[in-house]
């Protein structure tokens, strides 16, 4: 589903990714963890070309998306992304946030978009918020709407970039619950998170990233109970 081959990314003279090789199968739940600045968010952002790799190949569904002729919009509409700071459109109501891209990009009818969005709102437990503006929602509610907005495009892949890092502690759980529910739906999920307990519970695989490289790629039990590298051990000691 997603394959990285020798992906490098430089920001000016700063080398952020140093040869990433990664294979994610359809329906898998993969969590990228590692210290801040290690490049895990950049890996995620390369998957929908919010960052363009300096070199290397990224194959999504059999297509190398780093090639210049690729229709980036067509790639992106199949890949939902959830951001640390939600990034809801503040001038649109909740329902308009959700139906905008399905109508504009997927060209589905207003009625269908609305019906589908209302279903998703129910799924994230916020049916009653359809017609209000994001400014009146709590952080946890905003993030659940942001997830629902991404799902409204019916993506095959969902990317989560530290979805709970900007939330008050009491709101983390409601968002994680929604992500956990998604993990059983067959959508491929790639997460960047600092919630170690959650990562262990929900992931099929953990990738430990440090200094722009994948140092470990293992099942959660293996990784958390018996990491291979010193770097991973030192990291886990600090965060657990």
């Amino acid at each position: 589903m997603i394959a990285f081959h020798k992906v490098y990314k430089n920001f000016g003279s700063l080398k952020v990714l140093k040869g990433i090789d990664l294979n994610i199968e359809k329906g898998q739940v993969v969590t990228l963890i590692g210290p801040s600045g290690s490049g895990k968010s950049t890996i995620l952002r390369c998957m929908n070309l919010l960052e363009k790799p300096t070199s290397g190949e990224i194959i999504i569904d059999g297509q190398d998306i780093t090639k210049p002729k690729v229709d980036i919009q067509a790639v992106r509409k199949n890949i939902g992304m959830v951001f640390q700071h939600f990034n809801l459109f503040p001038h649109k109501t909740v329902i308009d946030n959700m139906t905008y891209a399905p109508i504009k990009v997927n060209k589905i009818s207003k009625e269908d978009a609305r019906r589908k969005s209302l279903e998703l709102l129910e799924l994230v437990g916020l049916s009653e918020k359809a017609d209000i503006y994001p400014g009146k929602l709590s952080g946890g509610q905003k993030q659940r709407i942001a997830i629902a907005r991404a799902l409204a495009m019916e993506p095959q892949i969902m990317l989560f970039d530290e979805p709970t890092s900007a939330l008050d502690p009491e709101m983390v759980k409601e968002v994680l619950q929604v992500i956990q529910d998604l993990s059983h739906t067959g959508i491929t999920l790639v997460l960047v998170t600092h919630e170690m307990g959650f990562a262990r519970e929900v992931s099929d695989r953990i990738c430990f990233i440090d200094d722009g490289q994948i140092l470990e790629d293992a099942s959660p039990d293996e990784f958390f109970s018996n990491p291979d590298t010193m770097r991973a051990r030192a990291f886990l000691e600090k965060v657990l």
Partner: protein
Amino acid sequence: MKLDFSSVWQYWPFLYHGALLTLKITLICTLLGFILGVLLSLLKLTKCKPLVWIANFYTSIFRGTPLLVQLCIIHFGIPQLIGVTFTTTQSGILTFSLNSAAYVSEILRGGIVGVDKGQYEASMSLGVGYKDMMKDIIFPQAIRSILPGLVNEGISLLKESSILSYIGAVELLRAADQITVLTFRFFEPYLVIALIYYVMVMILTVFANRLERWLNRSDRVS
């Protein structure tokens, strides 16, 4: 010392026509300045470096020289150079529109650049194209921070149109000048036009506040 407004009232048609010209020039120049300013700001937001340089150079010229000097060059200078003459109103409209465009383009650019980069990323991640993103997501948010700047620009156009009296256009200030010549009263005519300017600015401000409230309706807690 006593005030005598009767001499001013006697010549009120002067003021009336002066105020009309002031308003007319302000409205036309606000509109033309806005249209030109939008085009300039689009140039500034392209990735094509030479276009950005041209737009920035244009802006720096009009911001870096006095408006009155620009007016003199256009009204007295250019006709000598190319042989066409402008009426005072034409020169005024030309100068103020070109000048206003420079300021408006900066206001617009600042507003658009000021929209959180997460809004671009969210739009892009949903597969929304550049044009739709700018039209439906970025610009509607930018307009809230742009609007106060545009209103200020409109207000300064209104007030600075008074320098057109320098080239002989009979706008509000010039109309007052004429009354002073006819009546030998200085304080009253100038006080009256100050009041007229003030009222016009206030009307503009109230209107702008309404518009702003309407634009910010999504922030209101119901």
